[in-house]
């Protein structure tokens, strides 16, 4: 589905060297540490990571939704405009119009004491200056677009009268109301069941295609990212550690974290009682992180040089990039693995057995 011609020209959204820090009582939390990516018109970028990886903070930064205490640096350019300058200028009809967001929990993003039709209409009246009647008629049409049966009846219902799946469709309808060019979906299906998840992802996919929207899909679920994204960025400890087109990322990955994450999840086609390969240890602290590869303590490839500084993303934006000195599937990676196996331990002191990791 990747249409190379569409990738030509300037990207719709371009993020360069984004940093986000939160001062707290315990110290400064380095939530996002130098994230860069491009998103082209009509494409979907999935940002994958675990809790604390910085994926949601990145999304909130784009939408100007961070608390006032956050310290942000870096560039965010949308259609040639500096988004952070727009945010500072209190621009009224940009966020929620050009760029909109769908959140994880539909119940908290909807007002419980307002009919869903009114909530959608509110967006249209505020941003596009529609009259009440026009806005309600459009809201009904939007409910139809997002596949809600009996929209004429549903517009006058309250959120609690709808199932979780329908509520999330209402939230999507609100996000679509002003015909955005970029939709950011932050874990849009985490709170719903798997059959509903499939429908919602199909819906988002279809809308993106029909309307030529671009989408950023934020998820912890590698399966969700795989089927739905053109490009994938894997985040760990506030950094993008690997980014590539979805196919390369899932079938020819370079970063040991991507590899370990894919190996650790139970897959439906694995045999029953298949022994899982967990990632040892746990995610790093974001306060005063040591000057080393953040994944090194958990990595079966780790060598002495991994502890000597944070590796940067290789290559040019838009290509398959990874931040690793001993990438999996390369000679350097294989040599690192062989050395660690022979020594029985990594440079960071992690025990390596014949089972651990793999590579090659």
């Amino acid at each position, binding site marked *: 589905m990747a249409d190379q011609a569409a990738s030509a020209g300037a990207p719709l959204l371009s993020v360069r060297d984004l940093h986000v820090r939160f001062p707290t009582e315990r110290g400064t939390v380095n939530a996002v540490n130098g994230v860069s990516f491009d998103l082209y018109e009509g494409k979907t970028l999935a940002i994958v990571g*675990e*809790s604390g990886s910085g994926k949601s903070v990145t999304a909130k930064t784009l939408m100007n939704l961070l608390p006032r205490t956050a310290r942000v640096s870096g560039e965010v350019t949308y259609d040639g405009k500096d988004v952070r300058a727009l945010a500072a200028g209190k621009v009224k009809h940009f966020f929620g119009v050009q760029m909109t967001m769908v959140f994880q929990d539909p119940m908290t993003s909807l007002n419980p004491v307002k009919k869903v039709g009114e909530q959608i209409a509110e967006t249209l009246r505020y941003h596009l200056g529609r009259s009440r009647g026009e806005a309600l008629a459009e809201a009904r049409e939007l409910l139809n677009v997002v596949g809600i*049966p009996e929209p004429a009846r549903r517009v006058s219902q309250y959120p609690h009268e709808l*199932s*979780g*799946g*329908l509520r999330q469709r209402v939230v999507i309808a609100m996000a679509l109301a002003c015909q955005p060019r970029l939709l950011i979906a932050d874990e849009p299906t985490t709170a719903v*069941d*798997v*059959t*509903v*998840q*499939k*429908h919602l*992802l199909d819906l988002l996919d279809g809308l993106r295609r029909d309307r030529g929207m671009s989408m950023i899909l934020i998820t*912890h*679920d*590698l*399966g*969700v990212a*795989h*089927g*739905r994204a053109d490009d994938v960025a894997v985040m760990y400890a506030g950094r993008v550690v690997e980014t590539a087109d979805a196919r390369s990322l*899932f079938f020819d990955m370079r970063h040991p974290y991507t590899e*370990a*994450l*894919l190996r*650790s*999840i*139970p*897959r*439906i*086609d*694995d*045999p*029953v*009682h*298949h*022994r*899982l*390969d*967990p*990632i*040892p240890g*746990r*995610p790093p602290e974001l306060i005063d992180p040591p000057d080393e590869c953040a994944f090194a303590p958990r990595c079966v490839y780790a060598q002495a040089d991994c502890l000597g500084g944070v590796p940067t993303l290789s290559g040019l934006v838009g290509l398959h990039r990874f931040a690793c000195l001993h990438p999996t599937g390369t000679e350097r990676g294989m040599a690192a693995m062989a050395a660690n196996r022979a020594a029985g331990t990594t440079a960071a002191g992690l025990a390596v057995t014949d089972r651990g990791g793999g590579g090659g």
Partner: protein
Amino acid sequence: MAGTGHAQLRDRDDVLLRVEDLVVHFPAGRRSVVHAVSEVSFDVAEGETLGIVGESGCGKSTVARAIIRLVDITAGEVLYAGQDLAGLEGEDLRGVRPQVQMIFQDPISSLNPRRRVRDVIAEGLAVWGDDIGSWSRDRIDELMDAVGVEAKYGARRPHEFSGGQCQRIGIARALALDPKVLICDEPVSALDVSIQAQILNLLQDMKRRYGLTVLFISHDLSVVKNVSDRIVVMYLGKVCEIGDTAEIYSHPAHPYTRALLASIPEPAPTVDVSEGDIGDELPSATDPPGGCRFHTRCPRATGICGEVEPVSEQVGDADHYVACHHPVAVQVTAR
């Protein structure tokens, strides 16, 4: 089932837990009731892991809670080693409880935040004293070591541990009384992807080490497949399909099971489940559909499905039972 029936119950000497026609209703005001669990029957043999899978509202957690009597049983039997837990009260019920222990979904809220984790783990032993094996420092150290939490951290409180560590502590607490049956209610759903595998492997190790019989409840079909010898697929308080895990995943016969499998977002799906689109509206459990409860969403439903409730029947000669008027034909391999 989405129906009833007993065809799946096995006549074997090693059946440790047998649930027969279990019904759980919750009052919902104005004389209406939530039909959370309706005539559910299954059994678990000693040393087996039975997975219960289904979407939210299917009654899987209620089944688990009913077995250990955390919710009241409306009707039916829960036979544990031949004894009906449904009728037990007072001291008799208390006497069985150490043998059936449970771990919960949210590892942090299931531990008392004000207590040291060593005391959390030891509480059951302190209560039961010499009936089971007396409280000793060594015993707690051994349990902490078994689940992979360093004993030197025993004086810390739950908030000082990560979610994965808290789940390990919850497992140690459940194992302290040397139970025969361990009920796991969504034990990894609240954990990060990279931690889930650690806990799943730990549960497998503990099962082997302590000779446990496990009831494993999850909405995640890949997780359930990984841990279970047999599985039960539930929908709206009823059993759809039950049997050997590999058999059901390779030849799903119930349209609902097929729809669930087809919905999994998987890096590279290999199970062929081409027909599987069902609507997203789960009917209300206060007024469940008549006949087969799944008929309102089922792509194969016909007139009979809305009128007659299907009864479970064996599929071929395998350990595989389905309650459906129009099960998907399963090729029976000659042996």
